[in-house]
């Protein structure tokens, strides 16, 4: 139900570390905002497009992922072109597309688990300060992925319940039972986690 958006592969981007990819995305993204020359923005767009379309993503899949965001960008930039200038809109278009394409390429070449490991590592300094528990992040991710299918099944049975009673399926009458039924499990799940000792109390701190 929740498969990652990444594809397997051996491109340079696949082999690069997550941290490096995110750093490049951040630095290049910010750097592009400092640039307003089309002589740099158009090549940047072409290069990122080449990177994005060579990640091993099937062509139709690559296009369909871009569609919603391209739609938003176009609507906004048509307004910009009309209200300010054509040139400014063109600059924004190539800059945004370059960033979006590279972001898409990072997403397509990085496995979910690699991201989670990296987030946990990045949180280590905060963990040492006692502000967060880095291991909790992985646990929380796991819980979400584990319970989405369950909650979806629950939604379906509430919907069936509505149909069986001849009621219209409305968000209003679905939300309350769905939320209450789901959150009621929290105590049991928390007990199960504690019983297995997944969140050991800190020994060194506090």
């Amino acid at each position, binding site marked *: 139900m929740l498969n*990652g958006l990444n594809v397997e592969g051996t491109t340079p981007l696949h082999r690069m570390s997550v941290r490096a990819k995110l750093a490049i995305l951040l630095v290049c993204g910010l750097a592009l905002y400092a640039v307003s020359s089309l002589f740099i923005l158009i090549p940047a767009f072409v290069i990122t497009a080449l990177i994005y379309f060579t990640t091993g993503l099937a062509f139709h899949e690559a296009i369909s992922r871009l569609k919603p965001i391209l739609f938003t960008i176009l609507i906004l930039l048509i307004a910009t072109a009309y209200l*300010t200038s054509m040139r400014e809109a063109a600059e924004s278009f190539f800059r945004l597309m370059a960033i979006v394409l590279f972001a898409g390429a990072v997403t397509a070449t990085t496995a979910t688990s690699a991201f989670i490991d990296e987030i946990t590592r990045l949180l280590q300094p905060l963990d040492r300060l006692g502000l967060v528990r880095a291991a909790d992040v992985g646990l929380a991710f796991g819980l979400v992925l584990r319970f989405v299918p369950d909650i979806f099944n629950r939604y379906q049975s509430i919907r069936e319940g509505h149909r069986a009673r001849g009621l219209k399926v409305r968000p209003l009458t679905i939300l309350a039972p769905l939320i209450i039924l789901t959150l009621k499990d929290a105590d049991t799940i928390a007990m199960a986690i504690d019983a297995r000792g997944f969140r050991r109390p800190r020994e060194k701190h506090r």
Partner: protein
Amino acid sequence: MTTRDLVLIALFTAIIVVLGLIPPVTLGFIPVPITAQSMGVMLAGCIIGAKRGALAYVLLVLLVAIGLPVLAGGRGGLAIIQGPTGGFVLGWIVATFVTGLIAERLVKEGQSEIKQFTWFFIASVVGGIGVLYAIGMPWVTAVTGTPLSAVAMGSLAFIPGDIVKAVIATLAARAVLAGYPLLHARA
């Protein structure tokens, strides 16, 4: 943070993901179809409160960032955060916090039903609409160069739908408060 809080946060994030899988509803008098997921900010703030609600959204934004298709229509990935509407995605966290803060302070368990409805509605409108647009719209302007006034005019099309969402979130939050109160419960 207790294990129970952690579980509540993760379960709420999972609920928000599931709300994105429910087909959107079109109401006759509103131009934009309503996705159940976009009520998540108001629901999270009003049901599990400021801190846990905001953390549920931090978790959701992280799920988006790591490339899981958790948003309505199977969207996800870093491009969403880097794109023109990224301000709204990041704004969800602050918006949920503000919604929760108002709801926690003003809604009491012994209050009359009318008062609870009123405060939940105000919390949803201020946090889920006011704060969200206050962050999302300038972001659009900063990223695309579209004048803020034009972005604001365009956003007006979404306001009627947002008010409907605030009403639905208010009724749902009050039902949960009556059935399984969590807003003020701290372990």
